[in-house]
């Protein structure tokens, strides 16, 4: 636990300036979406769209900055020369991402208090966005550990650029009610989604540990 706290403190120290932007994004994106997508504003599912985009951008900002720093300075290699194990380092990556997700949730909460038109966050939206993020991150983290940030930056940038357009396209062609229908259907499979996300994150952690354990630093 102590080592995990050290590693999280390290990530926060390195990402300090960026975390402020992440916090601002987590508040700003839901506000922006609630005003700009008038057709979605009162629909059930707007909370899903807002949280999905804000959490995705928060992940994008955090992963990019930290990945860049670690790639450039090889600090992780130095940390493995201390009593911190490679397993601790991998675990801290997942915990840091959980922290970023919690920031995006808190950010939504703050923007909800400040924006009357914003829907309250439903449990279904939280679980669905969480599962969508896990689906992305559970592949991204082991791949980044294997290939390095330099080789993965195009992947993460592409996902970050495409996702708002994709949401826009789905809304345009499927109609604004598509998100409402999606959330209603998602509501009936929430326990399955939660279970799926935990299995996926567990498998991803296991693969990441193996990948990182074998890697020459």
């Amino acid at each position: 636990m102590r080592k995990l706290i050290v590693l999280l403190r390290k990530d926060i120290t390195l990402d300090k300036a960026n975390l402020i932007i992440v916090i601002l994004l987590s508040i700003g994106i839901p506000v922006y979406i609630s005003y700009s997508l008038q057709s979605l504003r009162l629909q059930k599912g707007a909370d899903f769209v807002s949280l999905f985009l804000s959490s995705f951008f928060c992940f994008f900002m955090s992963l990019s900055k930290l990945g860049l720093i670690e790639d450039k300075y090889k600090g992780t290699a130095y940390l493995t020369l201390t009593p911190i194990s490679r397993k601790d380092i991998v675990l801290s990556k997942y915990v840091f991402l959980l922290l970023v997700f919690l920031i995006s949730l808190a950010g939504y909460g703050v923007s909800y208090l400040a924006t009357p038109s914003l829907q309250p966050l439903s449990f279904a939206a939280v679980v669905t966005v969480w599962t969508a993020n896990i689906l992305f991150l559970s592949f991204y983290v082991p791949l980044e550990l294997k290939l390095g940030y330099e080789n993965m930056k195009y992947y993460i940038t592409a996902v970050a650029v495409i996702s708002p357009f994709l949401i826009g396209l789905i809304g345009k062609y499927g109609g604004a009610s598509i998100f409402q229908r999606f959330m209603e259907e998602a509501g009936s499979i929430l326990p399955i989604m939660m279970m799926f996300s935990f299995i996926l994150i567990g498998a991803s952690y296991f693969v990441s540990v193996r990948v990182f354990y074998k890697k020459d630093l």
Partner: protein
Amino acid sequence: MEYLLELENVSKKYKRFQLQQVSFRIKPGNITGFVGINGSGKSTTIKIIADLIRKDSGTVKFFGTDRRKQCFNEQIGYVMDSSYFYEKQTLGAVKNIISSTYQNWSENEYRHYMELFELEEKQKIKELSKGMKMKYALTLALSHNARLLIMDEPTSGLDPLVRKQTMEVLKEFIADGTRSVLFSTHITSDLEKAANNILFIHGGKIIFDEAMENIPALQEKMLGKKYISLEDSMLNFIEHMKQGEIL
């Protein structure tokens, strides 16, 4: 006797280079100079010891036990050839991260070396010269009561004054006879002033592992040439190996 470090038949194969069955032991109370020309396998061996790269075969033991347990790093200090620090951070911020990972961190030792090396906590890593970065790495490595100090080319590119100061610190470090240093370098003049033992590697193979005082006799016996200096000796051995006179 408990050896601080033992390598037995350690091998690692790359496309153009192979570390072949490297074996040696480090006793307490020694400065072992790990010498060899560029590309001889010094850094590969040290990175295998540090677990930064994976060996293909062989064993690495610390304090008589098979390494794998990260807790051994509590008793080992590393100074690597390149700066692995986060350059935009201050010395104080990096120290706060590193010190929290050790249970035996000594703030007194840290302050002592920071003062000795004239380093300021408020300085950013990127503002340090190469010599100062090495001094800072040495400060961190010496501040957690390590029993074994492993250094990969720490003095290359440094001025004679910094190198002299470093060697003085190393001699002080091993003075109580319980601790040791493994020091890789191709600046052999540094070792002549401080090392008790010389480990010579060439082409991925250990050529000899001898006490410093035995090297002149070893050279005369193996090469039939009078010993002038460690550097001259190293070059003579390489020359004879190229001619196939030593296998």
